C-alpha cells in the first residue's frame, strides 16, 4: 500500500515535469501563433491585439499556472486555431487513438501468446531456427514501411481496402474498426515478433530448470508440465513487457496515424505543433505522457502481483 502511494506521488511529479517541459519548449521554438493566425497580410498592431487577446503578453510562469489550475479543474483552454474548447477536440479525437491502441494491443496479445508458446515448446531444431530467424526479420521492418507495404499490396494490388478513407466512429463503429485493423496490425506485428521472441526464450529457459526434470522423472507428461508449471513462470516477464508495449504502441501511433491518415490525437498533435496551437499541444502532450507513465506504473504493479518474490525488493 505504501508502495502504491509512493509510486503515485512520483507519477504526479513526473507529469508535472512533463507539462512544465512542454510549456517551456514552446517558449524556445521559433514562431509565434499569431503569425499563423493572421497570415501574410497582417499588420503589427493586429498581431499585438491578438497576442493580448490570447494572453500571450503575460509572463510564461503566470500563463503556466493559469493553465495548470484550469487543467486541474478540467478546463483545457480554447484552441487558438479552431476557436473551440480543447476538451471537445480531445473528446472527439481521443477515442480514435484509444481504439487504435487497444486494437493493436489486442492483436499483440492474441497473436503473440499462442505463437510464443508454440514456438517455445516446439522441439524441432529447424522450426526453432526458422522461427527465430523470421522473428529477427519481422522485427527489422519499420512499422511505417509495413504500413506502406500494406497500402500498396492490399490497397492497390488486391484492392481490399481504401487507404485514407477513414470513417469516423460517430458515423459507424464497425466501419471505423474495419479501417483501423490494418494500421493496428502494422503497429502490432513488430511487437508480436518481440513478444514471441521473449516468450520463447522464457519458456525454453524454464524448460531447462530442475523442477521440470524432476516432474518429468515423476512421470508427468511434457504437455502437462508445460501447462501446469512452465507457462505460469514463463509468462511473468512477458506480462510486464506487454504492459510496457501498451505505452509504446501509443507512441508508435504517431507515425502510423500519419501513414494511414487517421484523424487521431497524434495527427492533431503534429498539426498543432506546426500551427503553434499551444493549448492543444499542451493538452495532448500531458494526456500522452499520463498514458505512458500510468501504463509503466501498471506494468510494475502487475509484475509484482504476478511474482510475489519481487515484492520485497
Amino acid at each position, binding site marked *: 500500500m505504501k508502495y502504491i502511494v509512493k509510486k503515485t506521488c512520483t507519477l504526479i511529479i513526473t507529469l508535472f515535469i512533463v507539462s512544465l517541459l512542454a510549456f517551456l519548449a514552446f517558449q524556445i521554438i521559433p514562431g509565434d501563433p499569431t503569425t499563423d493566425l493572421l497570415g501574410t497580410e*497582417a499588420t503589427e498592431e493586429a498581431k499585438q491585439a491578438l497576442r493580448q487577446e490570447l494572453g500571450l503578453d503575460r509572463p510564461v510562469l503566470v500563463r503556466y499556472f493559469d493553465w495548470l489550475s484550469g487543467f486541474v479543474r478540467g478546463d483545457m483552454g480554447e484552441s487558438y486555431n479552431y476557436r473551440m474548447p480543447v476538451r471537445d477536440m480531445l473528446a472527439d479525437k481521443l477515442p480514435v487513438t484509444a481504439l487504435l491502441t487497444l486494437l493493436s494491443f489486442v492483436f499483440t496479445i492474441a497473436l503473440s501468446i499462442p505463437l510464443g508458446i508454440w514456438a517455445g515448446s516446439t522441439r524441432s531444431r529447424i522450426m526453432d531456427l526458422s522461427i527465430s530467424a523470421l522473428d529477427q526479420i519481422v522485427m527489422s521492418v519499420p512499422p511505417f514501411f509495413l504500413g506502406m507495404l500494406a497500402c500498396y499490396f492490399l490497397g492497390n494490388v488486391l484492392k481490399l481496402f481504401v487507404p485514407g478513407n477513414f470513417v469516423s466512429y460517430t458515423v459507424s463503429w464497425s466501419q471505423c474498426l474495419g479501417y483501423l485493423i490494418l494500421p493496428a496490425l502494422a503497429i502490432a506485428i513488430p511487437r508480436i515478433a518481440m513478444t514471441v521472441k521473449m516468450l520463447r526464450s522464457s519458456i525454453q529457459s524454464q524448460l531447462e530448470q530442475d523442477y521440470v526434470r524432476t516432474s518429468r522423472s515423476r512421470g508427468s507428461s511434457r504437455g502437462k508440465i508445460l501447462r501446469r508449471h512452465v507457462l505460469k513462470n514463463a509468462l511473468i516477464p512477458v506480462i510486464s513487457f506487454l504492459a510496457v508495449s501498451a505505452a509504446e504502441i501509443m507512441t508508435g501511433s504517431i507515425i502510423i496515424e500519419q501513414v494511414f491518415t487517421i484523424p487521431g490525437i497524434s495527427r492533431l498533435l503534429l498539426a498543432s505543433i506546426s500551427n503553434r496551437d499551444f493549448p492543444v499541444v499542451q493538452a495532448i502532450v500531458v494526456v500522452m505522457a499520463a498514458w505512458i507513465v500510468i501504463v509503466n506504473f501498471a506494468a510494475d504493479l502487475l509484475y509484482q502481483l504476478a511474482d510475489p518474490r519481487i515484492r520485497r525488493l
Partner: protein
Amino acid sequence: MIKRILAVFLATAVMAGLLCGCGEATTQSPVASDETTDSSRADQGNEITVGIAQDLDDSLDPNLMTAAGTREVMFNVFEGLVKPNSDGDYVCAVASDYEKSEDGLTYTFTLRDGVVFHNGQSCTAEDVIYSFETCAATSVTSAVVTALSAITDISAQDNVITISLSAPNPDFISYVSSVYIIPKGYTQQATAPVGTGPFRFVSRSVQENFILERNEDYYGEGAKLDKVTYKIYEDNNALFTALNSGALDLVAHLTVDQVNNLSNGYNVLEGTMNLVQALYLNNAVAPFDNELVRKALCYAVDVDSLLSLTAEGHGTKLGSSMYPAFGKYFDPALAEAYPYDVEKAKELLKEAGYEDGFSFTITVPSNYQPHVDTAVVLVEQLKAVGIDAQIQQVEWNTWLTEVYGNRNFEATVCGFDASTLNASALLARWVSDNDKNMINYNNPLYDETFAKAQASADEAEQTELYKQCLEILSDTAANVYIQDLADFVAINPRLQGFEFYPLYVIDMSCLYFAD
C-alpha cells in the same frame, strides 16, 4: 510537348481552363465497376466528396480567416455586394446593381431584394453597413483595410447604400468584393459561419471533414449540388492515395506526377495556380545586393529544363511579378529576358567579384511540395556556375516569422498571389517602404513609377505604368522569376461545369452531374 503547351499558354495568356489530355490519366470509364470503390463516391444522390490537402484550421470568420485553403472553401458560403466570376470580372451578388460617379469618389449600390442569410434572417442595408464597418475594423488583410480606410461616409437609404471615398481608387470595386456580407449582431462566425452564398455551412470536424449544403433560399440560380463534403487529408500523399482508390469526386492542385500516376478514371483539367513562383532574393544581403549577381543567377537558371523536370513542361514562365491571368499587364516577352546561358552567368559573377562562386541557403516552406521541388532543381542547376546552394526546409509558421516577418533569409522559393483581383496587390509589395517588401527591394525609380500608377485615374495610363513597373523588376533582376504553376484538377467524369477562376477559389455552385 513542352513547347506546344507553352505556346498555348502564351498565346491565350489568360486563365483558360484547358481541357487537356494528360496521357493515360484522362477519360477512362468511370470507376463504378470497381467493387472496392467506396460508397462515398457520389453515385448515390446529388452530392460530392472533395479531397483537400489541408485542414480548415482557421477561424471561419470571414474577416479573420487567412489560409488560402480556407478562403477557397468559404468562397461558396460568403458573398460581397459584388463577386468575381471566372473571367475575372465583377458581377452583382448581394447588390443587384451599382454605379460609380464620374469622379470615382461615390459608389451607389442597390441591395438585391430577397437576399436571406443562412440563418433565415433577411439581409438589410444595415447588415451591409455593419459588414463594411466590421471588415474595416477587424480584417486581417491589410490591403483591404487600407482601401476601406479611404471611405469617408457610408450610408443607406431604403435599399440604396452610398459609399463616399476621400480619393479615387480604380481598384475599389475589387475590394468591395472582399467585404463579405454578414448578419449584424451574429457572434458565432468563427465556428458556425453565416453568409449569403450558394452553399451554407453545416459542420466541421477537425482534421476529418467540412460539410456544406445547398442554400435553398439563394436568390439566384444557386447551387446544383445538394451537398459538398470536403474530406481533409493534410498530406498530399494520403490525398492522392484516396483519390487513386476512387473515393473522391474532385481534387484540385495536383502535380503533374500525380496526374500521370492516376490509375482510376478521372477527367483531368489543367489551369494555373495564379501565383508568382520565384527564387526570391534578399536584396539587402551580400551577394544579392549586387545586381550583377542577381542577373547571373537569372542566366544560370534554366526555367524550361526546370519545368520539364518538375512538371513535364507544364506551367507558365513569368519573368516578372505578374501572372497571365492578368492579361492586361502580363508581358510574355519578359519571361525571355534572361535566356539560359552559363557562360554569361559566369562572366557576370566574375565581374561582380565572385569568380569562384559562393554559397547561400534557400529557405523553403516545407508544406508545399512544388516549392521544395523547384528548390531542389535550382540547387542542381546553380552547381554549373559554381554556386553552392543549400536547402533549409522550415515549417510554414517559422517561414512566416523568420523569412516573411523578420526578413532573416538569403533566398527563398515561394509563390505570391493577389488575394484581391487587382494588379497593385502584386506590385505594391516591392515599394521600398512597404512593410511586406520581404526582399528589401529598394529602387527609387520603381517607387516613383508605382506611385504614379496608383494616382492615375486613367486606366490606359495606369496599365502602361504598371507594365513599366514589371519591366523595372525584370531589368534589375529583383528576383529569379520562375513560373506560374500548372494546376491540375481531377474530377469525376460525370461531374460537369467546372470553372477555373483567376483566384484561388473553387466555385462549387457551377458543378452538376450529367446523366
